[in-house]
C-alpha cells in the first residue's frame, strides 16, 4: 500500500497519533504536499458521506477531523503561500440571539476539511458582523450561517438578506435544526445542508 493510501485510510478512521508520522513518510517518499492534502480531503469527504448516511456518528467525525488537522500541521510549513489547494475563506457563525455552537463547530470542522480556511465568528453574531468579516478577510468565498431555534429563524433571514444586500460576491449556506431547504430558498440563501457532512459537499459545490 502506498504511503498516501495509508494516510487516507488512517485519517478516515481517526488515527490521530499515526497520521503525522505517515504524512512525513509520504513526503519522504517524494509525494507533493498538495497531493497528500488532497488525499486527506478525499478521506474527509468519505467521512462526511458516512456521517450523513448515519453509518458513523459525531465522535468518529470529530476524531477524523482531528487526525487530518494533525496531518495538515506537518504540511503547513511546506505549503506557505501555496493557495492552489484552497477553496477560499469561509466565514461561519451562529446568528444573533442564538447561543448554540456544537452543530456550528462540527460544520466548521467539516468545511475546513474540505479545503476552506475558516474564520469562526462564534455565536450570537449580528447580521452586520458577517458582512464586516467578509470585508476584513482575504479571499472570502462563502458565508455559513447557523440557527438552531425556531425563534432565531428571523435572525437567520436577516443575516442572509444583509449579506446579499451588501453586494459582496460570496455564496451563503445555511443550516440548523429548524431550517428546511424551502426556508433556505425563501430567505435567499444559495445553499442548505441538513448536517455537517452534507455542508462540506454543498460548500465545495457552491464555490466550484
Amino acid at each position: 500500500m502506498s504511503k498516501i493510501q495509508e494516510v487516507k485510510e488512517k485519517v478516515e478512521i481517526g488515527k490521530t497519533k499515526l497520521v503525522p508520522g505517515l504524512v512525513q513518510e509520504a513526503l519522504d517518499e517524494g509525494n507533493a504536499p498538495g497531493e497528500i492534502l488532497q488525499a486527506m480531503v478525499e478521506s474527509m469527504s468519505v467521512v462526511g458521506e458516512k456521517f450523513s448516511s448515519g453509518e458513523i456518528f459525531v465522535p468518529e467525525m470529530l476524531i477524523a477531523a482531528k487526525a487530518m488537522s494533525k496531518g495538515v500541521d506537518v504540511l503547513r510549513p511546506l505549503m506557505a503561500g501555496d493557495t492552489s489547494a484552497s477553496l477560499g475563506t469561509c466565514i461561519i457563525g451562529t446568528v444573533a440571539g442564538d447561543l448554540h455552537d456544537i452543530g456550528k463547530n462540527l460544520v466548521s470542522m467539516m468545511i475546513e476539511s474540505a479545503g476552506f480556511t475558516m474564520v469562526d465568528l462564534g455565536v450570537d453574531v449580528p447580521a452586520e458582523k458577517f458582512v464586516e468579516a467578509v470585508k476584513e478577510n482575504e479571499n472570502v468565498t462563502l458565508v455559513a450561517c447557523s440557527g438552531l431555534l425556531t425563534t432565531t429563524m428571523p435572525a437567520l433571514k436577516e443575516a442572509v438578506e444583509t449579506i446579499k444586500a451588501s453586494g459582496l460576491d460570496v455564496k451563503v449556506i445555511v443550516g440548523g435544526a429548524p431550517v428546511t431547504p424551502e426556508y433556505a430558498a425563501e430567505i435567499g440563501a444559495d445553499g442548505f445542508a441538513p448536517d455537517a457532512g452534507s455542508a462540506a459537499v454543498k460548500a465545495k459545490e457552491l464555490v466550484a
Partner: protein
Amino acid sequence: MLTKRQNLMETIKGGKPDRFVNQYEFMNLIMEAPLGEMAGPGQTIKNGWGITFSWPADQLGGFPVHDEEHKVLKDITDWKNQVKAPAVATSDEAWAAAVAHANAVDRNEEFVAAFVAPGVFEMTHHLMSMEDALMALYEEPEDMHDLIDYLVDYELAYAKELINRIHPDCIFHHDDWGSQRSSFVSPEMFEEFFLPAYKKIYGFYKANGVELIVHHSDSYGVNLVPFMIEMGIDIWQGVMTTNNVPELIEKYGKQMTFMGAIDSGVVDFPGWTPEIVAEYTKKACEECGKLYFIPNLTQGLNFSSFPGVYEETTKVIDQLSKEMF
C-alpha cells in the same frame, strides 16, 4: 373514572385506559430537592462541580460555558485532580421542602416524581465541552470509563438520600442522547460507556421502591431503544417525530412507553396558534394510538417556552380523549 396513576398504569401495561394520559399529569414533580444550583433566566452561576452556566435573559435556556477560563476539565487524563464532586446534601433543613411536598401528594392519584438532571452523558460534556467529551471516548476510553464511574457513584449517593427522604414512586431523569436526526454516539459506544452506568443507576432506584423510570431525551434515539429497555426505562419522554413513533410503539410498546410526538419546536414558538397546537396534537394522538403512548410536548418539563402552549396542548388532549375513548 380511573385516577391519573391508574390510567397511566393501564396505558403502559396495555390495559384499558379510559382516556389519554395527559402530558405530565401523572407526575407530581418534586422540584424542591437539593439537586444543586441551576441558572435561571438572566443568571450566570457556578454550580457545585465548578461548572459555569449562563442563561442570557433573551434565550430559551442556559448553557455551560466552555472557554479555556471556565472549562472545568481541561485534560481527561488528569480528571482525578480536576473534577471534584460536591457533597450530597444530607441535612434535614436541605430536604425539608421536598419532604413536605412529597408528603402532601396523594399517591393513589399521582406519582411522587423526583426530578434528576443533568444525566451522566450530559455531565461529561458539561465538564469538558461536547467536542472534548466525544473525542475522549475514542482517545482515552479508560479515563472516560473511570470518570463515568465517578459520576455514577455521585448519582447513587444522591439517589440513596433521595430515596430515604421522599420515597419517590417515579424518577424523571434527564440525559439528552442525540440531536433530532441521530444519536450523539454509536450504539456500540453507548453500550460500552452508558448502558452499564444507567443499569446501575436505574437498577438502584428500582431495587429501592421506585416503580417508574421516565427518561427524558428530546432527540432521535431509535438505535438506542433496546438499551433503554435493558437499563430499565419505563417511559421515554421527549421522543421526537423523527423517530417514527407509531413504528416504535408497534415494535417496542409492550416493553417501553413513548411520551412526546408533539415536537416543541413546531408548536412552541412566538407565533403559535391554537390551530397549530391542535393540528400536531391530533396527528400525534391519531397516529400513535391509545396504548403505550402519552401525548406530550417534547420539552423536558411541564411547561412551554411560550406562555399558553402547554395549557392549550392539555386542552386539545382532553378534547381528543372525549372523542377517541
